[in-house]
């Protein structure tokens, strides 16, 4: 059992993981205080014959303390979260140099549409690769998630990215991978009987490899 987050490979991981550990520590303290308190009280104040409990109806001071402390703590967590949230999912958070992709999501496939050699999406030289997303390292990418039937959710655990793809909605998600390698994409929203197998992969290439892959694929697509 482990409360350590698994290895990460995107720029979001730092912020999200940090926030997670902050909350883990705070809630850990609260957890220990309450559980140890309960245990101590349970032992110390267990019934003994001939003893009467102390008649205490409450204490305004104590209650103010344990209202204020959680309230302040929670607001601080909220404020810390707000900035990170805006950076990741805010309306204008997508960096202008992000490489655009279109992702057509259907039961139970991810069809990634790549810009062809002309560097434009939506032109005839675009090509589609099923269940494989190839991206360059250290460069933001922007995915437009287009759900064609039901709601799916784009989830890359290693990138700490999750975003529902909702039919009829214009949904964009961005991230920037930091390590070359191969990672799994999962669907995180129940989408039918094949939901559990709606798996795809992200291949993070170095910039040169990515260019090489692109031109190979474009050439192959051209042949057909």
């Amino acid at each position, binding site marked *: 059992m482990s409360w350590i987050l698994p290895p990460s490979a995107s720029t979001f991981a730092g912020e999200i993981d940090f926030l997670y550990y902050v909350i883990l520590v705070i809630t850990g303290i609260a957890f220990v205080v309450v559980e140890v308190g309960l245990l101590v009280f349970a032992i110390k104040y267990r019934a003994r014959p001939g003893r009467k409990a102390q008649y205490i109806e409450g204490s305004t001071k104590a209650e103010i303390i344990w209202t204020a402390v959680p309230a302040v703590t929670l607001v601080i967590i909220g404020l810390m979260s707000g900035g990170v949230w805006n950076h990741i999912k805010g309306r204008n958070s997508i960096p202008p140099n992000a490489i655009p992709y279109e992702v057509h999501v*259907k*039961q*139970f*496939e991810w*069809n990634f549409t790549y810009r062809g050699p002309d560097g434009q999406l939506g032109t005839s030289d675009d090509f589609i*690769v*099923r*269940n*494989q997303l190839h991206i360059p390292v250290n460069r933001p990418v922007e995915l437009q998630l287009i759900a064609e039937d039901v709601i799916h959710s784009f989830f890359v655990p290693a990138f700490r990215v999750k975003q529902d793809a909702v039919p009829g909605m214009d949904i964009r998600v961005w991230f920037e991978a930091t390590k070359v390698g191969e990672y799994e994409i999962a669907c995180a929203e129940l989408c*039918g*009987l*094949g939901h559990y*197998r709606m798996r*795809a*992969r992200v291949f993070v290439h170095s910039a040169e490899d990515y260019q090489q892959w692109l031109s190979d694929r474009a050439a192959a697509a051209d042949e*057909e």
Partner: protein
Amino acid sequence: MRRFWVTSCLFAFLGCGGGDGGSGGGGGAAETAPLGNASISGMVMFSGDAPANPAIDMSEEPECAAKHTDGPTNPIVSVTDGHLANVFVRVVGGLPGGPYPVPSEPATIDQNGCLYVPRVVGVMVGQTLAITNSDPLLHNIKAVPTENRLFNISQPRAGMTSNRIFTAPEIMVPFECSVHGWMNAYAGVVEHPYFAVSGADGSFTISGLPAGTYQLEAWHETLGTQSGDVTVEADGSATLNFTFGG
């Protein structure tokens, strides 16, 4: 399929709503002997250059890709030396009166190498269609017919079989696999047994007919339909060829 829910609910209470469709078989229809011994056979040809079938990207399905030694293509128009396969031929005119014998043998369709085999299958109303999975991975079979009941079932493991029975004639019931977007198949559901699917060599045979003049119709998923007339004597055989163009 917007069946009125109350019916299904009532059926559930009566305990006869178990919709596996496979258990009962077409047993209701009496097994009768063939009405005749004549047969019609023929060849489906394709004239011109066959269009190239699209390549399938099976790179994320290694188990299936391994079953295709050369790069897998989707056999939408399957032409070998001018012979066209996967054409569904059936008698549409001049039919003898029923009742028609329902074959006790099920029609079969297999999922193998992430393709439906065969791609086109004929099945009689009331006859069992056995759908099997030869791939060690998930396939689902989704059929959205217009005359029959919709179904969408899964076969997550190799060796599984699901039986389905269609209750109304329909040309054609489309099958698709949602896991593998390229997988399509078509089932021709006919109320009589006089149908056939052209094989890899383009040939087909419809047998068990009494003497008479028949109109036949040939259906192809992208090339449309053609029809032709043919007369056959008792216990005889006749030939009718179809030619589809590119």
